């Protein structure tokens, strides 16, 4: 789960990291008031869970409260990469910027440790920096039993060319960012840019934070920070039903049990000339009501021209899944063609039930994918013809 900039920065501030004063506004009037309270000059920033806000016109510097209102009006409601802006952060304008740095804490899977990543090349896309000038990125790994040690922050500060007077403050910021990371079960805490002001202070101008979804149950405060407005409705509904669903752009919907098999199914759809319309892992149980919800979600996408069911019965029994599909179809009126492939436990019984109901069935995944692609083409042909 990703947090908004304003949420991340508030958590940073709780860990002693300096941030500019600022408040969130949902209306242009609020934005004006906030800007006025902070002395007039302010930055108005779209709060939306995607990058590239600046290029999309979602970040503006206002010289007066009225300007802040005008910008807020323009930004609120704006669409950025398909997401609607519902809030803006109105931050006091930072003192002049001497230098922009980059600082983040993330997990290094290979070393199985949290890692601090720092660079003097802040303010830009860090992946690009890593790609073009890897020598400008400096890293240290944190042993959770020891925490951030001063020799590590000295190493980073020295590597980045930070002046000696800022080493102590830099250490506190790194230690704070790591504490924030750890105490919130983050998978990423990032400050980009961390600025050196003209009066030689460090300050976090922007903030990004991702939370480990598996930890939300033990971090109720963070779970409450989830911005439901920012999540596609279908994905939210799936999540509540215990299904993992990700909307994509293709024409073949698919419903699979197991994440790996779901990915493989998508890949094979593509291999045989189709495009997957979604990732959908129905989970281990595949109860009839889940199957129904899943099917409804898939079919709510008008681009879907065919649906492929791929269920490998293990604990899950094929006949039960077949009944779930049939009962789901009773509730949903659709003409989209469906191909069902069942394997494993009680697959034959399940396939027999479905064949009776006049559904297309397949013995292998390849066959199922080919049939689904063909059915999609056929249904497109029908639509074009009609």
């Amino acid at each position, binding site marked *: 789960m990703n947090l908004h900039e304003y949420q991340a920065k508030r958590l940073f501030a709780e860990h002693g990291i300096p941030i500019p004063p600022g408040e969130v506004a949902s209306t242009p009037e609020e934005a004006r008031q906030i800007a006025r309270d902070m002395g007039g000059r302010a930055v108005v920033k779209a709060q939306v869970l995607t990058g590239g806000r600046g290029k999309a016109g979602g970040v503006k510097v206002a010289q007066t409260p009225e300007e802040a209102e005008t910008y807020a009006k323009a930004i609120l409601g704006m669409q950025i990469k398909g997401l609607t802006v519902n809030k803006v952060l109105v931050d006091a304008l930072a003192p002049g910027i001497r230098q922009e740095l980059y600082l983040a804490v993330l997990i290094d*899977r290979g070393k199985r440790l949290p890692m601090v990543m720092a660079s003097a090349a802040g303010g830009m896309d860090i992946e690009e920096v890593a790609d073009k000038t890897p020598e400008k990125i400096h890293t240290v790994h944190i042993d959770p039993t020891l925490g951030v040690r001063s020799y590590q922050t000295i190493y980073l500060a020295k590597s980045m060319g930070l002046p000696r007077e800022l080493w102590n403050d830099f250490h506190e910021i790194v230690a704070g960012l790591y504490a924030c990371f750890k105490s919130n079960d983050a998978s990423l805490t990032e400050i980009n840019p961390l600025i050196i002001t003209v009066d030689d202070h460090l300050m976090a101008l922007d903030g990004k934070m991702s939370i480990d979804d598996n930890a939300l149950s033990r971090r109720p405060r963070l779970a409450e920070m989830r911005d439901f407005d920012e999540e596609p409705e279908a994905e939210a509904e799936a999540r509540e039903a215990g299904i993992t669903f990700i909307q994509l752009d293709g024409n073949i919907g698919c419903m699979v049990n197991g994440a790996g098999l779901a*990915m493989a199914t998508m890949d094979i759809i593509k291999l045989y000339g189709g495009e997957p319309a979604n990732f959908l892992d129905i989970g281990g149980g595949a109860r009839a009501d889940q199957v129904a919800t899943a099917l409804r979600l898939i079919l709510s996408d008008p681009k879907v021209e065919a649906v492929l069911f791929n269920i490998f019965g293990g604990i899950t029994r094929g006949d039960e899944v077949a009944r779930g599909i049939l009962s789901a179809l009773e509730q949903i009126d659709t003409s989209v063609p469906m191909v069902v492939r069942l394997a494993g436990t009680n697959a034959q019984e399940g396939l027999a039930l479905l064949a009776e109901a006049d559904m297309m069935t397949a013995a292998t995944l390849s066959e199922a994918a080919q049939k689904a692609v063909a059915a999609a083409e056929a249904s497109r042909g029908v639509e074009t013809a009609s």
Partner: protein
Amino acid sequence: MSILVDKNTRLLVQGITGREGTFHTNQMIAFGTNVVGGVVPGKGGQSFEGERGKLPIFDTVRAAAEATGANASIIFVPAKFAPEAMYEAADAGLPLVVCLTEHIPVLEMISVRAYLDQRQTRLIGPNCPGLITPGEAKVGIIPSSIVTPGTVGLVSRSGTLTYEVVFALTQRGIGQSTCVGIGGDPIKGMDFIDVLRLFEADPNTSEVIMIGEIGGNAEEQAARYIADHMTKRVTSFIAGLTAPPGRRMGHAGAIVEGKSGTAEGKIAALEAAGVQVAKNPDHIVEMIA
């Protein structure tokens, strides 16, 4: 012969009285696994009433191991208690621990893994289907009906995708030495390399199938290991060619971050190491038949 589990495995079930624990304990026993007892704190002295007889329940893994001579445990407890269960099993000195539990936070697993690394305990999982040596022992939930004894070793980050491939092998009469589901979490116990090393050393394994997916760089590391150390043929499939970057595909570990963790990169690395990579899991069987 096989790896990790066999007729000599003496298994404890941590959380044996839960719904999952009870069901799969019966399944494992039916398969022939030597389950020697269960562990449920506070229920020591009671009995597990299995479909094929009673099993003793102990309060702690250590007491259970001392009483039964157990040499492995499987963990069926909720995510909140699973780390404690792994610490306990490792502290008791069990050489093999299999944790099926999903949704364990990454930072918890970092601590668990660091603890295990200082000990002699091998961990499979978490968030995995466990492992099975056809004809000998099953420690996990891989369906008993889809396996058959043989000499192909299989290691996978996925659950049902593994079943798919194993079942296809069995249908074609190609038996398996051991099938190991290492799980889809980013921080886990044994990884591809650890299992490949065991297969390479196992006289009953003639060749290996490795099933990977997007995210992390375990497949790339495995490719290097295969090139440098494996004499046995390895055939592979990598799931997630069509997965969009930045989205977690179900598994906590299955996410393409920036330019790292892509299926393309993994396939290229494996092919460079001389591994045949199938475009379609259905084709693996033909590739090795």
